[in-house]
Each structure stands twice: as structure tokens, then as C-alpha cells.
């Protein structure tokens, strides 16, 4: 098995997503209007919301990979699940970092148990457990099944967590960006571009990580 970047197409992909990421940062800084009451803090939403979208998409892929692993009994789906869980958690961490950075100047405090951020935080804690069982679980084949099961029940729990947190403290304000579709085009289009770029970056990262895990399994377990 060769290195990921040995393949010419993968090298081109790397150049493409790097260029797109640089373009995205430039676009956010220079081509988006300044929102009067939020100033520079608002710009973080072009990163925060796409990160949340990619994080939850990734956890959906973990669930699908878990179901496929149980049905097909193929190690490839376990690899997809693990890769998606790792990258998903990376983006979820980004959400949990950028959320309080935005909230500090706008709401006056970094954390107010906003329903979406709270749901994200609970999901993040579940995935800490997921990685613990992956790392310390013991028997390799059993751990694959346990991890797949946790990936499935974690995502099944998301709507219940979200509804309960929302009703728990209804007076807490939601993101102002909830109605993203109603934003003026000057904000909406750069946001959609950022969303597409983040999604593309995610799939390239997933492809890369799957390759690395497969390479590692080949070296360690020779499978």
C-alpha cells in the first residue's frame, strides 16, 4: 500500500483544497459586510456554522458506517466509522472553541447553555467515551462492534438531547444565525461558499484518514 500523496490525483486534491481554504479566509475577511452591532465577531460564523454542519454530518456517517459494519461484517466500514469519528470530533471541538469566542463579546459571557452548543457539548462527551473504548477496550474485534453500537446510539440520542435542552431553558436565546436563509445575499453567499468548501475539505480529510488507518491496520494486523 502506497502513501496517500503518492497518487497524483490526491496531490492535486491537496493543492485544490488548500487554495480553496485560503480563498475562503480572504473572502470572509474582505468580501463580507460588517454587521454593525457585532463587527469582527460576526465573521466567526462563517467558520462556526460550517464546522457544526461538518461535525454533525461526520457523526451521521459514523452511524451509517456502524449500521453497515453490522450488516456487511466488513472491516472497511469500521475504518470509515473511526475516521469519521476522529474528524467529526475535530470539527465539533472547533465549534466548541469558536462558539464561546463569539459569545464573549456579544452575550458578555462565553457559555450560556445555548441549546445547539449544549447538544454539541453532550455529543462531544459521548465521543470522548467512544475514543476511550476504542483505545482501552481490549479485544480488537469486540471493540469494533462496541464502537459501532456507540456511534449508532449517540446519533439516535441527538434529537432527544436537543429537544430536552431547548425546553429545559427556553428563555436562553438561540443563535442569531438560525435564520441563515433569511440573511442578505452579501452574508448568505459567502456563508454558502464557506459551507461548500468545508464540506469538500471534510471529504478529502476523510479519504486521507481512511487511507492512513488502512495503512496502519496493514502494518500492525496485516489485514
Amino acid at each position: 500500500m502506497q502513501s496517500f500523496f503518492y497518487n497524483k490525483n490526491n496531490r492535486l486534491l491537496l493543492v485544490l483544497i488548500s487554495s480553496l481554504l485560503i480563498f475562503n479566509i480572504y473572502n470572509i475577511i474582505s468580501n463580507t459586510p460588517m454587521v454593525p452591532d457585532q463587527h469582527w465577531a460576526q465573521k466567526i460564523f462563517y467558520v462556526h456554522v460550517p464546522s457544526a454542519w461538518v461535525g454533525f454530518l461526520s457523526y451521521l456517517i459514523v452511524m451509517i458506517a456502524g449500521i453497515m459494519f453490522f450488516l456487511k461484517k466488513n472491516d472497511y466500514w469500521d475504518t470509515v466509522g473511526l475516521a469519521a469519528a476522529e474528524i467529526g470530533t475535530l470539527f465539533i471541538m472547533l465549534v466548541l472553541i469558536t462558539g464561546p469566542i463569539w459569545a464573549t463579546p456579544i452575550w458578555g459571557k462565553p457559555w450560556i447553555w445555548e441549546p445547539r452548543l449544549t447538544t454539541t457539548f453532550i455529543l462531544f462527551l459521548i465521543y470522548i467515551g467512544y475514543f476511550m473504548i476504542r483505545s482501552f477496550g481490549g479485544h480488537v474485534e469486540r471493540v469494533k462492534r462496541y464502537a459501532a453500537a456507540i456511534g449508532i446510539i449517540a446519533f439516535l440520542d441527538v434529537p432527544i438531547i436537543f429537544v430536552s435542552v431547548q425546553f429545559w431553558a427556553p428563555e436562553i436565546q438561540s443563535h442569531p444565525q438560525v435564520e441563515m436563509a433569511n440573511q442578505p445575499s452579501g452574508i448568505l453567499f459567502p456563508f454558502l461558499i464557506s459551507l461548500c468548501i468545508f464540506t469538500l475539505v471534510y471529504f478529502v480529510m476523510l479519504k486521507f484518514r481512511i487511507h492512513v488507518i488502512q495503512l496502519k491496520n496493514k502494518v500492525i494486523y496485516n489485514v
Partner: protein
Amino acid sequence: MFISLLKKELFIEFRSREVILSMLIFGLSIILAFAFTTNVSKIIVLNYAPGMFWIMILFVTTLGVHRSFTYEKNFDAFSLLISAPIDRGLIYLSKWISGTIFLTVMEIIIIIPFFKFLLLDLPSNFILFSVTSILINFAIMSVASLVAGISMRANLSEVLVPILFFPLVSPVIIAATKISSGVLFGDPYQLWQIWLLIIVSVIVIFPLAGYTLFDFITEE
């Protein structure tokens, strides 16, 4: 077959009383800690009482469910159980129902010390409080049994159970506290019916997921 598995769980517990007794003693110790750390007015304690009650239940459930699954590891009993020609999902269902029974028995015993040690009056609508608590027990145990079933044969299972269980059960704990507060303060049903729906949705989703997944989780 489900009845036989449930009988097995109940007989083992009837003989050893390990799960209920350990949950009960641990619960009493938690009440003691609450009593020492909440030396404030009765009204303040009453406001926090539902939350404290369900925190206590959360801790004792972790202990009980872990005990209930780990004694299956003795003499490799679980391997024998899953090699039997039975639907493995039924093992989960029997653990869930028996766990709920143990938790309910433990709650019946501990409810009076809980209120009396915190110097509170017993709930005036005691029957409604009990009925809603039993429903919540079903929800808590459906999550706890699934988590314990997943992590039981993993290394560090005693650490993994609470780490996975607490965040997964958070919607149930929110709903449980809101329902118990509503009942305790005599709020109209309309104010806490949404929380009952959340509990019912957990009782439907988790046992279904557990029944389906247990067959895959326990594969050798």
C-alpha cells in the same frame, strides 16, 4: 424465553440481594453527603430536591447496572448465556426489566429517608410522584442496560459505564427533574407533559435499539 431470563435475574438477586443492597447503601451515603452540604433553608432545599433525588438515582444506577452485568463475567457465565440458542436481544430486555424492578424497589425503600434526612415533608401527591418515577426508571434503565451491555466485556468497564452513561442519559435527567418538580409543587399536567413525552420517546427508542444491537454486540 424472556420470562425464563427475567426469572433468572430475579432469582439471582433474590438469593444474593447484591444489586439492591449495594444501590441502597450507596444511595443512603449520597443522601448523607447531600444533608451535610445543604445546610440551608427548607425552601431552598425543596427547590433542589428533585434534582438531588435524580442525581442520587443516576449514581446508584451506575453502580447497580455495573454489578448486574459483571456477575455474568464470573465463571464465564455470559459466554454460556450467549452460546444458548436464544434471541440475544431478549438478554438485554430481561436486564432492562429486572434492572427497573431493582431500581424501583430501592427507590421505594429510600424515598422516605431521602425526604426525612433532608428535613422535608413527603410529597402530598405521593402516588403521582411514584407512578412518574417508575416511568422514569424504565427510561434510565433502558439507557443504562444498553451502555453496560456494550462496555461490560471491555477493559476498564467500570470507568466506561459512567463516562458513556451520563451524557447519553442527560435528556432523561432533565425530564425527570422537571417532572418531579412539577409533581412536587403541584403544577398542572400541561406544564410538564412535554417531559413525559421525552421519557416515553426514550422508553421506545432505546429498548428498540438495544434489542436490535445486542445481537451484534454480543457476537463472538
